[in-house]
């Protein structure tokens, strides 16, 4: 089982990668870690925060375990743009032209209340930073 840590400010949460459902994309993410990138609130996808990482861009990569709707705790990855989405509530993968598919690559472990608050706060405080790393011992 592969687990990652997601940190925003002083808040750290653990998420489990869905390696069975999305083997290639979880491996791609795992191999890119650690990363530290700007985090902003979504402006079209609802209750989630978003980050983009150049290392994760792969326009030819198939979207595994594809979803469009987001639920609390979901971590999603859009390989065409290298975008990661962190959902703290209801959302849907949307762009200027409409709805699209993303890969459901991870799920926050436990209740996630603190990290959800941190993700939601990007709407109030503006750009933050998200650090993602491999969980020690995972």
């Amino acid at each position: 089982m592969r687990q990652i840590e997601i940190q925003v400010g002083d808040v750290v949460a653990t998420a489990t990668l869905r390696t069975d459902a999305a083997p290639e994309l979880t491996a791609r993410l795992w191999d890119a870690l650690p990363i530290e990138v700007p985090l902003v609130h979504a402006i079209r996808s609802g209750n989630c925060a978003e980050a983009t990482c150049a290392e994760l861009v792969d326009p030819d990569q198939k979207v595994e375990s594809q979803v469009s709707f987001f639920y609390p705790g979901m971590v999603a990855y859009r390989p065409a743009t290298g975008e990661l989405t962190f959902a703290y509530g209801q959302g849907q993968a949307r762009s200027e032209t409409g709805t699209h598919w993303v890969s459901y690559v991870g799920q926050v472990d436990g209740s996630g209340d603190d990290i959800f608050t941190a993700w939601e706060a990007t709407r109030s405080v503006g750009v933050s930073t998200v650090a993602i790393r491999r969980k020690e011992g995972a």
Partner: protein
Amino acid sequence: MTNRRVVVECDGVRAEMELLDDNAPKAAAAVWDMLPITDDAFAAKWSGDAAVIHPGPGAVQDVTELENPVTSIYPGAVVMRPRGSEILFGHGVGEYRWGVGVDYVVRIGKFVTNVTEMLAVLRKTETEGPRRLTMSRPA
């Protein structure tokens, strides 16, 4: 009849918005009645490049119909939901959406002065957080 003007001030920038009395007479009249309106303008989370305020209780809550409804929110356009739950100020590519998808709004205004500067301030809500915004009648 010349449309009325509304002064919009946000983060030190002042612009005038033409109130679209001819396009949405009921909604425009209700907004005019409620002025001044002050609220924190947040970046939209469903509708794209637009800043959102919530006018609060008042005449806009009695406006139930969609007058010349639209979904697109163009740069400089100001739109309102029926019953006045929110007013959105477009600064880029926007379309009125919420959890269940696309929906309709009423065009109540458009910025006609200091447009570039005002749109730049509204755009900052996406990366810098909310900005205090006031809509008022000209002095």
